[in-house]
């Protein structure tokens, strides 16, 4: 990446026999919103704390705009960081907390006052300057933590699951605010979360980690629509998996057979004829209709109503269970357990996966 601000090269960190980071390399672009996503134990927090300087790498290197920072202590790295529990200093007021990084940088007091006021305004907390952290709600503490991390104008902001302690509604509001803030400030955000929706809605790019190594890196749409491995397909959203045999065709129209049915997959790369490959199929790409309306015939086994959508499990004698997600406002059939239906999908709905 030409405008890379931060590079991680071959980072390895072991905790006993566990490899928390297993040869991770990553380039982070200037001003991008990058999310490290993975289940617990995937190494995402280790990677973030290694970038911040709290975790020492066993091997590998970190560099910031070409300067090696691998051996630097956290205070020299000049990154803003928002901690999971906010870690606001309980013995200082809101203003005191925001002023802390400026005081340790020996700013003069009038500059500090101006900057603290600016930061309070940035997160709409002007009225709370003299409160103690313990007198604030979770969402307010979150805002102060953000203001504190940004007060010294770091070029990179590290966020460790900053919204995980908040309730769902507040989390959604703050997601928008964080995105606005990111666009407004042009600061590079490195964001750790285990919440796939959060990752999809906020990020420019997402890094999916599993067992200490990177599974796939890409934009939200790219990862969602073209997952490379079963893990990515399953972790980001829901997916049906079909074991298919490639029976012929050419790039753009690969012929596949599975469960006694045959269908076409619009894949740019054509796997060798005769090979067995795993396909991912998103539930919302599957159409459901009256018997005969679509290509395959099945039976409704289970139905789950979710408000705007309904999830239907359709069983097919060869393909097994197929999860279908359909909008509930769409008139047509009303699936009920036991009902015979037909289902099918467009040729570009299926994606070939690598074995992993």
């Amino acid at each position, binding site marked *: 990446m030409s405008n890379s601000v931060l590079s991680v090269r071959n980072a390895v960190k072991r905790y006993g026999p566990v490899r928390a980071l297993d040869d991770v390399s990553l380039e982070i672009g200037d001003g991008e919103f990058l999310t490290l996503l993975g289940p617990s134990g995937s190494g995402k927090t280790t990677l973030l704390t290694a970038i911040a300087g709290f975790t020492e790498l066993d091997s590998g290197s970190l560099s910031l705009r070409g300067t090696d920072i691998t051996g630097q202590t956290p205070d020299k790295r000049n990154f803003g960081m928002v901690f999971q529990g906010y870690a606001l200093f309980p013995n200082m007021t809101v203003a005191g907390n925001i002023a802390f990084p400026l005081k*340790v940088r020996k700013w003069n007091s009038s500059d500090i006052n101006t900057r603290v006021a600016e930061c309070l305004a940035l997160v709409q907390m002007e009225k709370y300057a003299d409160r103690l952290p313990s007198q604030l709600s979770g969402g307010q503490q979150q805002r102060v933590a953000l203001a504190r991390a940004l007060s010294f104008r770091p070029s990179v902001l590290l966020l460790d699951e900053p919204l995980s302690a908040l309730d769902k509604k507040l989390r959604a509001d703050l997601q928008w605010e964080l995105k606005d803030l990111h666009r407004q400030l042009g600061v590079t955000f490195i964001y750790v979360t285990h919440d796939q929706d959060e990752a999809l809605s906020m990020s420019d790019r997402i890094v999916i980690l599993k067992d200490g190594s990177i599974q796939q890196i890409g934009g939200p749409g790219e990862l969602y629509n073209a997952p490379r491995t079963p893990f990515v397909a399953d972790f980001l959203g829901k997916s049906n998996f079909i074991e298919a045999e490639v029976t012929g065709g050419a790039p753009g129209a690969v012929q596949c057979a599975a469960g006694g049915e045959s269908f076409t997959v619009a894949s740019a790369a054509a796997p060798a004829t005769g090979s067995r490959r795993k396909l991912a199929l998103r539930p919302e790409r599957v159409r459901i209709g009256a018997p005969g309306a679509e290509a395959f015939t099945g039976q409704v086994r289970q139905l789950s109503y979710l408000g705007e959508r309904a999830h239907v499990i359709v069983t097919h004698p060869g393909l097994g269970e197929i999860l279908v997600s359909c909008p509930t406002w769409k008139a047509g059939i009303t699936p009920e357990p036991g009902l015979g239906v037909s289902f099918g999908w467009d040729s570009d709905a299926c994606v070939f996966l690598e074995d992993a």
Partner: protein
Amino acid sequence: MTPGLLTDRHRYWLLILPALAVMIIFYIWPLVNILGISVTEPEPGLGNYALLAESRPIQTSFIITFRVAAITTVFCLVLGYIVSYAIYNASKRGVGLMVALVLLPFWISVLIRSFSWIVLLGRSGLVNDALMGMGLIDRPLRLMHNEFGVLIAMVHVMLPFAVLPIMANMKGIDRSFVNAARGLGASEWTAFWQVYFPQTKPGVLSAALLVFVLSLGFYITPALLGGGRVLMISEYITYQIQEFLKWGTGTMLSVTLLVATGVVILAAARFVNLRRAFLERG
């Protein structure tokens, strides 16, 4: 008996009645008697209390008592803070061992611990013998029967009382605070001094109060290591009553010490949450 004759309130009182009775018979009643003797022996009036203003030895003894208690407190706080901080930063396995080592002295009588110091610090004690053996000194150093000896042993005896409240306080401090400070650009020292230390103040104040108050009334250790030369008030009282049979003076000093201690605690209550310091320790 009709139900409701005993309300919950009454029942709770019944529960504490035995303990209350013991307290009244063996503690409060004797205390009242002591107060009584102090204003009636040898003759009714406040004559005994006038000694506080007149008697040099009594004044000296009070000064020594407060000085020894204050110095002991300072040393216990410094050492206790370091020990607690080491425990806070130790590995999980290390913590158990270190806490056990802090608590271990509690299982050994104060008398024995004080005698041990005599064995160590005496004229021909281990320390002097070793120093002379190495040729570092020609004559034995006076390590005890003076305030120095009393202080060494007092600090040793009181140290756990400083460690426990500070340790309990530190245990409640999340590590992320120091990390956050470091991440925001603070040096190790700044992070400690401006972020960590202020949060340990309640523990330090509790420890200070506990050690100071216990030191004020301490008897065995100063008596043994002071050798009659460092007369703290408790020992002074013993002399008055056992040697001179001056019950009036002895009881007057007891009451004065009690009041002085009470004043210290009340003054401290302004800064320390006493309830937390003494009742809710982990």
